[in-house]
């Protein structure tokens, strides 16, 4: 007779064997990648492939006086040279952007930015194509260049977009100048003004969030293959949203959506960069349709950094009103947004500044107002969510910086001022004054845990001692709240398609399963974690569950992977679809055991008859029966689909703390310690979460400490190679300490919130905070990124802090 203890042990073993939710299961993807056996777009080799290469503008703003293709066409092996004139009859010389604007596929009469696509060469191989690009002669007439967004709306500013000059709306509301794209306001302006008028204390800080590029290791590219016989178009593409690409390609090309197949194979990182549609894709697709052969286009690194989507470029002014105790009475955020030559930022369609209005952060702020103006400049177009939900990085940056500015003004400790303003645990769900419903949180516990872990008091004491000796040590503290999991279709759509996501699960007769999702992994480990969700829900070992994504011919329609939406939306769809299967399985199990469905209970991997030990049917047995012995009137088979439209966003949060020492003679910042506590609700695979946090911190470190895309006055992009653009190696990257609390989301079927972007969003202001904190005794309230040695030294030198005694 088994003891109770034996039974518990057996249950635990049975559960562990599934490798379900909570298991640090090794990533299924890795054996393939570490053996070099991944299949990226450039690995796709179709017979008869031709190669595309682009002629790009050396000027930031110029009129095209003429294009001579003759020499290029005369080069043996060149099949075609296409320009805007050639695309015009197909109406494909311009394409719509996700933001309601249009972008030139190939420059139509004018170029608006350096490296803009002017012509495409199609040739037998990429070497001939590159030679032919040099032979295309383009005559330009240079025009005045607009680089500074602050001058974009001047009366005498050069007008950039002549195509849109007469439009009073370029997709996101009324505009007041030919270089103006939109004005977006949220919140109660009058009440906010009143709060500021009546406040005991106000603070104001200007800050620039530089233009940075997500820079995944794999650049963008595609292989387009049009079969002239059956009219079918296959496109292998570096896309984070293959289903949306299918819809857009069908709309643009006129090929019915049923004959367009988009495949996102292995993707070498996306980070928001691979959400949009780029001219290179369109030209390759057009060329394949025209020529009837596969056409491959793969960008090089400079093309990638120079023309594909970047992030941020926000000139922000934050203002806080508060009482003398530091309790916040109001918030104002004003932004000038540089969107470049075309408004091709990738946000849900109705959100011109993304979710910037989450800028009240983790704090109970009674009233706020946000104002954003977007403008055109002669720079590459973009404004994507670089490892963050839409513009949340900017929102967290401005509120976290302002909390410190207020703390410094009032002489209140930076941890204490946060504690005084936090939304309290009992206030959840909490409606922010700008319209968000924070689902759950316990900010105090997270903060206290971090302060105790690092001995915050001890660090402050050490800092005081160092300051007395003239040494510079800083402590950065950030208590952020993110909004991810876009999103409820009532708020969010892409070109009219609601931002649901989907899962389709099929259990085979012998009990293994396949699941296909509308999302697409780019390194997140979906093949591992989705299987764990199904394992826990259906009692099938995750090793026996195959996960497939990225092929629109087989996967259900979904909006893709970005904005930390896979777990909140795709993961929810997976859980719900699995539960539909379990409901059917329960009926089959009851039928097999000849009992009422109500008498059956689920237990890890089997159905048991309540109160009758030994009366049970495993999911494996039920699966077999589903194909030969189902209750009368029931369809055979065991599968389900779910299109999950989330009722709300999820709101992961965390407390990060950073300790830096600054070499005052060189400006080199040593990040001595970085402690990151994340709360992403239910943790599906702790090891993958830790990996995601490390990755996000690395990218946050990169942004804060070195990444920028500066332009000179002529609109030349400086630093568009990896010599200058900062991609840290493990030599530069600090050591990360990670920690967690678990506050499940009340509305997500699993309680999970998503995590991959929190470390990016949360760490960036933490680095800035640490550097400012090191200089706070010198009355410094803010220093703009990037905090490379050069810039830090400039600040130190202006302060005279680098002087020798």
């Amino acid at each position, binding site marked *: 007779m088994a003891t109770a203890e034996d039974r518990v042990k057996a249950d635990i073993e049975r559960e562990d064997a599934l490798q379900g939710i909570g298991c640090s299961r090794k990533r299924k993807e890795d054996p393939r990648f570490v053996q070099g056996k991944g299949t990226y777009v450039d690995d796709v080799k179709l017979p008869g492939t031709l190669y595309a290469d682009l002629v790009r503008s050396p000027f930031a703003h110029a009129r095209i006086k003429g294009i001579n293709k003759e020499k290029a066409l005369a080069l043996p092996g060149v099949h075609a040279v296409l320009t805007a004139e050639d695309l015009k009859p197909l109406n494909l010389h311009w394409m719509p952007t996700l933001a309601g604007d249009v972008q030139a596929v190939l420059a139509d009469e004018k170029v608006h930015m350096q490296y803009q696509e002017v012509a495409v060469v199609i040739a037998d191989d990429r070497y001939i194509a590159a030679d032919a690009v040099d032979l295309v002669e383009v005559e330009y007439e240079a025009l005045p260049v607009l680089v500074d967004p602050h001058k974009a709306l001047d009366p005498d500013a050069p007008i950039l977009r002549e195509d849109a000059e007469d439009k009073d709306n370029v997709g996101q509301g009324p505009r007041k100048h030919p270089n103006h794209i939109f004005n977006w306001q949220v919140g109660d302006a009058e009440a906010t003004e009143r709060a500021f008028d009546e406040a005991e204390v106000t603070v104001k800080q200007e800050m620039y969030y530089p233009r940075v590029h997500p820079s995944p290791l794999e650049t963008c590219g595609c292989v387009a293959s049009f079969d002239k016989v059956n009219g079918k178009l296959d496109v292998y593409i570096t896309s984070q949203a293959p289903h949306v690409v299918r819809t857009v390609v069908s709309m643009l090309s006129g090929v019915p959506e049923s004959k367009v197949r988009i495949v996102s194979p292995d993707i070498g990182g996306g980070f928001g960069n691979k959400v949009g549609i780029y001219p290179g894709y369109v030209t390759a697709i057009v060329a394949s349709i025209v020529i009837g052969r596969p056409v491959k286009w793969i960008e*090089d690194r400079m093309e990638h950094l120079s023309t594909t989507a970047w992030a941020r470029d926000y000139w922000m002014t934050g203002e806080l009103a508060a009482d003398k105790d530091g309790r916040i009475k109001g918030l104002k955020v004003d932004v000038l947004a540089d969107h470049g030559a075309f408004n091709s930022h990738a946000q849900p369609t109705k959100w011109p500044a993304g979710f910037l209005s989450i800028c009240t952060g983790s704090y109970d702020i009674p009233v706020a107002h946000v104002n954003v103006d977007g403008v055109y400049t002669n720079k590459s177009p973009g404004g994507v969510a670089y490892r963050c939900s839409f513009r949340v990085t900017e929102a967290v940056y401005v509120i976290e910086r302002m909390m410190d500015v207020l703390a410094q003004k009032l002489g209140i400790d930076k941890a204490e001022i946060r504690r005084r303003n936090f939304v309290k645990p009992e206030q959840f769900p909490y409606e922010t004054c700008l319209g968000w419903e924070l689902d759950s949180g316990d900010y105090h516990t997270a903060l206290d845990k971090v302060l105790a872990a690092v001995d915050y008091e001890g660090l402050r004491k050490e800092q005081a001692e160092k300051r007395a000796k003239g040494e510079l040590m800083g402590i950065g503290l950030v208590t952020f709240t993110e909004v991810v999991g876009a999103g409820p279709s009532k708020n969010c759509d892409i070109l009219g398609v609601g931002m649901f996501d989907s899962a389709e699960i099929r259990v085979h007769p012998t009990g293994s399963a396949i699941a296909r999702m509308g999302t697409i992994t780019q390194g997140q480990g979906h093949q591992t974690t989705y299987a764990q969700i199904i394992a826990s829900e259906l009692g099938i070992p995750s090793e026996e569950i195959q996960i497939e994504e990225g092929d629109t011919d087989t996967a259900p329609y979904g909006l893709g992977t970005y904005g930390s939406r896979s777990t909140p939306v795709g993961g929810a769809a997976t859980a719900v679809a699995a539960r539909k299967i379990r409901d059917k399985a329960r009926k089959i199990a009851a039928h097999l055991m000849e009992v009422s469905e109500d008498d059956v209970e689920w237990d890890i991997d089997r159905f048991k008859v309540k109160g009758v030990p030994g009366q049970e049917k495993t999911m494996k047995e039920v699966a077999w029966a589903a194909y030969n012995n189902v209750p009368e009137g029931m369809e055979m088979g065991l599968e389900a689909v779910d299109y999950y439209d989330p009722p709300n966003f999820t709101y992961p949060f965390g407390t990060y703390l950073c300790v830096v020492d600054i070499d005052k003679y*060189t400006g080199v910042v040593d990040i001595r310690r970085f402690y990151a506590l994340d709360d992403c609700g239910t943790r599906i695979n702790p090891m993958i979460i830790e990996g995601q946090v490390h990755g996000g911190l690395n990218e946050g470190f990169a942004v804060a400490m070195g990444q920028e895309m500066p332009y000179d006055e002529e609109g030349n992009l400086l*630093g568009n190679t990896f*010599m*200058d653009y900062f991609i840290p190696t493990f030599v530069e990257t600090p050591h990360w300490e990670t920690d967690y609390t678990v506050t499940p989301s009340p509305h997500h079927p699993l309680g999970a919130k998503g995590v991959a972007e929190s470390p990016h969003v949360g760490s960036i202001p933490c680095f800035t905070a640490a550097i400012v904190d090191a200089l706070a005794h010198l009355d410094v309230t803010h220093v703009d990124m990037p905090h490379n040695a*050069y810039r830090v030294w400039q600040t130190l030198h202006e302060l005279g802090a680098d002087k020798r005694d």
Partner: protein
Amino acid sequence: MIPSGFEYHRPSSVQDAIRLLNENEDAKILAGGHSLLPMMKLRFAEPAHLIDLNGLAELKGIRLDGDTLCIGAMTTENELIDSDLVKQHCPLLVDVAKLVADPQVRNRGTVGGDVAHGDPGNDHPAVMLALDAEFVIQGPDGERRQAANGFFLGTYWTGLEEGEVMTEIRIPPIPANGGYGYNKLKRKTGDYATAGSTVVLELDGASCKEIRIGLTNVAPMAIRAEAAEDLLRGQNIDEALIEQAAELVMQACDPAEDLRGDIQYKTHMAAEMTRRSIRDALARAGS
């Protein structure tokens, strides 16, 4: 990122390489290729012929000639790092090589290529100035030697004549009562120096008998900070003198502004790296 077409040659000897170099119009020597190939991929350089020295064993290897350390021009950075002879006779070069670019580049990049390319950002030229090295050069008319001092004439412009190949680098020993210091400030692994300073000095009691200061990437070519050397030579070096020397180093600099820093920053960093190198050199000489 795709170079124009070129013809590839793999000579069987140095003589063969020199013949190929002189017979072909617009020919370039290929050593490690880590400067040349990126320029070719950007089509900033479009040589018609590449003469690859990588097969020539006679250009490799490290040996002693008396107390002079002789390094084959095609010796890679990693071979320098791993060499017991270099560790023993010129540990400075190990310190330098370890900070050249990244491990991949150090596997292919050669010390001769680094010196002969004439890029002010390369690390070895200023080190060779400070070490008072001598270069062995072969051309159609035979072999000659030239001192590092005076070899670096401008950006991509050295004392190497057209049709010549650098074959060996000869480094005199640092005296027993000498010391060296090497400090390089860079943004990240793989980057060129924002500023670098190499100091080699010899003491006579407490007095500085000889000192050479080589500066990296703060002028169109690697330079010596001669005024600072003159100030320090014959003196008992203390912090006050180091400060004065640092001022003179700044006056010697003529850097180009780029994303590493403006002229002011680079100039100040050349001075700061020099302060640290002098202190390091004194500490080593005293120990």
